[in-house]
């Protein structure tokens, strides 16, 4: 369930997935990471997100509508059930400032990097 970042670090091109639902895309800038996952048709109350140090865990369930007997299926490709995915980020996170947004079936989690690991601009003074 855990994915070690070292494996794909520095490989921005499409990498093979961890094989665990949901697939995740992660981007970063100097101050934060953004983790995105496609999770269509999920109620936000069925999503749990936790952060500890540099580890993010996203779990939840996707409920599918019950089927009636009068229905026959031509195609069934969409899956319901539970999921849990953990992701280890390359740097420690500021767990108190994590924000999550769910829109149009896409979950976006913004994870600020911990103060201690943020790249700092150092000005060199002329003596």
């Amino acid at each position: 369930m855990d994915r070690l970042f070292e494996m794909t670090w520095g490989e921005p091109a499409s990498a093979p997935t961890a094989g665990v639902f949901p697939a995740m895309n992660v981007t970063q800038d100097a101050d934060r990471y953004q983790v995105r996952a496609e999770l269509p048709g999920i109620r936000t109350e069925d999503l749990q997100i936790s952060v500890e140090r540099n580890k993010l865990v996203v779990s939840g369930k996707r409920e599918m509508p019950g089927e009636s007997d009068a229905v026959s299926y031509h195609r069934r490709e969409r899956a319901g059930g539970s999921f849990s995915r953990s992701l280890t980020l390359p740097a420690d996170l500021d767990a108190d400032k994590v924000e999550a947004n769910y829109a149009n079936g896409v979950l976006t989690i913004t994870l600020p990097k911990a103060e201690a690991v943020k790249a700092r601009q150092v000005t060199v003074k002329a003596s």
Partner: protein
Amino acid sequence: MPTDTNIQLSEKQEVSGAAEQTREGPVYEPLVDISEDAEGLTLMADMPGVTPERLTIDLRENVLTLRGEVEAPPPNESYVLREYGVGAFYRQFTLADSIDQSRIDARLKDGVLHLRLPKVEKARPRQISVKAS
């Protein structure tokens, strides 16, 4: 449906060639459920990132075409990990039954399209009484 099963990851299938593209970028096949009852067909399609304004549903001569555009990710983002591609959704289906176009109902919520396609009402069976001569 029980939720004690774990969802298995199914990688997005990229479509090549068939889709006429209005924009640059990859095109993927949405996952669908299609069910049928006496009155019609119900199609559910996972199209995460698609908004109602960017979704087109076209039905002509029994060919149903779904196309959804998504917002391109910000170009200057630096990827740390990329497990899935982001692009438009496109899929076509041939329907066996005649669909009553005037009663089609489409709803899009949280990236899931719910499309109801009622069948054309068949001519009512008529009872023919035979008179005794």
